């Protein structure tokens, strides 16, 4: 099914069910068969089944490329940040350590940094990325801004993130609840000072269930 050029990638962690269809499908992509570039983790399994997928956000000024001493990481004209060039990559790990989203993976077998390239083999031919096609809850969505606005009236996309002093604009958007103001994650303020913001109660079952003896 051919898709129009104005399609964008939207990530909606609120919708993730942790099924790993994206992780499994990613390893079927032509450019890195057998290896998955997606990260998918439980946020805090002891207290919640919440999971969060991370694909490459494809930054306007990619930190990974900026810190690369070998100039191995390139961005296409349409803004897709690619896996390191094999001929140039020196497997120094700078990009892995510097990426604020934790995206690049060091494949030590190949001495090569590999990362999500938004299924460039597919998107450049008018197909949707594998992960966003299969995602059963559409936590990963590939489509137009008009489509996502119709489908997610309760959320708003954002593509600006702040990490301490660094502000990053990205090609991929994250869906945020409309009801709340977009809050920047400020890592430095949480260091040694305690996390700002409301404490979220996670022990739902402790509250609602009628306490009774189990022994």
């Amino acid at each position, binding site marked *: 099914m051919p898709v129009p050029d104005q399609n964008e990638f939207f990530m909606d962690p609120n919708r993730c*069910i942790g*099924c790993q269809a994206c992780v499994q499908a990613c390893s079927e992509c032509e450019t890195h068969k057998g290896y998955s570039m997606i990260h998918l983790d439980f946020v805090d*399994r002891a207290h919640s089944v919440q999971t969060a997928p991370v694909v490459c956000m494809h930054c306007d000024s990619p930190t990974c490329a900026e810190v690369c001493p070998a100039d191995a990481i390139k961005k296409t004209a349409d803004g897709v940040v690619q896996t390191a060039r094999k001929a140039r990559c020196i497997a120094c790990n700078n990009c892995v350590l510097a990426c604020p989203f934790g995206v690049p993976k060091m494949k030590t077998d190949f001495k090569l940094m590999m990362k999500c390239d938004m299924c460039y083999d597919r998107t450049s031919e008018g197909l949707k990325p594998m992960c966003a096609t299969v995602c059963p809850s559409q936590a990963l969505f590939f489509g137009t801004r008009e489509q996502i606005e119709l489908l997610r009236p309760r959320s708003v996309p954002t593509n600006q993130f702040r990490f301490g002093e660094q502000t990053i604009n990205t090609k991929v958007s994250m869906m945020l609840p409309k009801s709340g103001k977009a809050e920047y994650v400020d890592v430095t303020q949480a260091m040694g000072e305690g996390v700002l913001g409301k404490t979220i109660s996670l022990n739902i*079952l402790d509250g609602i269930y009628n306490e009774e003896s189990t022994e």
Partner: protein
Amino acid sequence: MALLPENLLATEQRFGPHPAYSTGARLETGIEPDKLVKTHCCFCGQQCGIQLKVKDNEVIGFEPWEDFPFNRGMLCPKGVKRYLQGGHPDRLLHAYQRDPAAAGGFCEMAYDEAIERVATEIQRIQTAYGNDAFGVLTGASLTTEKAYLMGKFARMCLKTANIDYNGRLCMVSAAAANKKAFGIDRAANPWSDILKAEVIWISGANVAECAPITTNYVWQAREYGAKIIVVDPRITPIARTCDLFLPIKPGRDIALFNGILHLMIENDWLDHDFISRHAVGFEAVAAHVRDWNPKKTAEVTGISERAIRQAAEWWGQSKSSFLLHARGIEHHSHGVQNCLGAINMVLASGRIGREGCGYATITGQANGQGGREHGQKCDQLPGARDISNPEHRAYVAGVWGITPEELPQAGVDAYEMFRRIDRGEIRGLLSICFNPKVSLPDNNFITRCLEKLDFYVAIDFFLNETAQHADVVLPGSLHEEDEGVVTQIEGRVIKINKAVDPPGDAKQDWRVIQDIAKALGRERGFTFSSPREIFDELRIASKGGIADYSGITYEKIEKQYGVFWPCPSEDHPGTPRLFEPGSWNPIAKGTGPYYFPDGRARFNVAPYTPPAEDVDDEYPLMLTTGRVVSQYLSGTQTRRIGPLVDQYPEPLIEMHPQLAGKLAIANGDLVTVESRRGVITLPAMVVTTIRPDTVFVPYHWPGKKSINQLTISAQDPISKIPEYKVCAVRVRKEK
């Protein structure tokens, strides 16, 4: 005697399960496939559309099929990696027979010789002990053509009453309740109606893990403003963001449904017009739920009164709604009553048979719907006909060219068949698409029964744990090696297409069955040359029945992306939504939309009874079981697919930190769970997402890792479904 090979390790070394990973052409880039075959996933009841990439008679990968309307390209991890079951090192390529001297306990034998031996053994057992001494166990993952043929084979060729299928562990409670309330057993609505509902009530369904694509329907409805109510002892992924979570005690669902109906009546949140014009039996149900005030409901269900009142208010006042349930309320010794309680809530609201107003059970198996309609169930004939009804018998006997007297009467359910094996009444067994040694409750008993069989033949593509007991193993076909129809979760009949030929001596299952019929000298009725021919006979056999497929053709399925039954004529488009006002059916004949002579739906009094085995001082905790997203049923296929094995390698015992704290158990500790029937030791997973009085273990593994060693074989008196979802256990930390 169907004893296990002495050296089971050697059997597993030879036949697996070995986890397969992509190698060769499956890893190479830039390979141009010979063809892309549009078909469906081989696993759950959703039957997602998928395209298989085929190169040199091997499935080398997949491409999403975005045009198929149900899933529009979406797949779960099982669908993504399903192709790895093909070209598998464990694939049975030959017939085998038991041979203690051979590696792994089985030696290859010529296919024809194996068929001859099977026929000889069937004849010997039936001559010595009677026709019913040979039993047949089948499955709901078979195509409808195969399911139909298995029913015909058992009744007409083997002349045995004893055939039943693994849908007995799956959809039978919902099926029985649907027949009692609606007169028909099918999801009442297409899933597109979920999107238009204001309230979605989900009871006992781990939607995100067991029917992952359904999540998108539910959550899309929520985007449009729907409220989601989830009833479950665990916070599953669908429950994580729901509007109201009711953490019910396992086995107390009817109490909740009765309590909600009580509040609907008290607050007059009823559709009086619907109740008086389209249903009967409300008064008796209303009288019955009078006692179920919120206080009593809260005490029995373990849910707070406040939450119960909130749920009733949302359900009661909604303009549109969709109620979904699954095995969580059905796997009980009162599973049918649970479903009837849920249906009473729907009928009292009058919200059914219209756009955005729906009810459905979430079917578990690939052909859970179609596989329960055409005669592989012990009491049923094609077209959802009743084997004890003389008219139905006469019709089907006519299609088969036999007299009604030649048709056996109803047999017994799958579990009861094992009790008959135990008593020596059933001496021989043929199984296909069923792994009871892993999937049946109290399965150490099942093992003892298998050991008592005089002769056991298994047809399969992998040597599953039950087939390890077999005297003869016949190599059948994988999903992608045959064609045929299945009926998915919504009642949509869809077409499985053949992608590759069976390898080695393996044959399509229907050919294997016909070869046995021929070797028995009872070839008549078993000379089909293609699944299409079987389907054409099935269309006639189902004609005029409730599950009427007579107007469905392979071509129409392809053209319409599936056809919803009933479809009584070739110019009929099919029936996506049941019970629409003014709709016609062969039972009501125009008097009303429900499948009873007066055209009205039935309220049924659903009395509460506690689980068959309640907790006590000795066994103070409840055990409940279920699935994980990366595995499927008894794991015959998914425990052989490497990436799925890696995703959740072994079962864990989920428990709440309050319980873990009392028992000094930390996350990851080895923990022993014990019931009156069995014992299991597994690592603990300490999480706040489960009730503190309940532990959960998934059921996909065999042997020492099988939780079905502990589960109870208590069954629902009507549906005969086993009570997988609750029994009493005790837990201790391993030293």
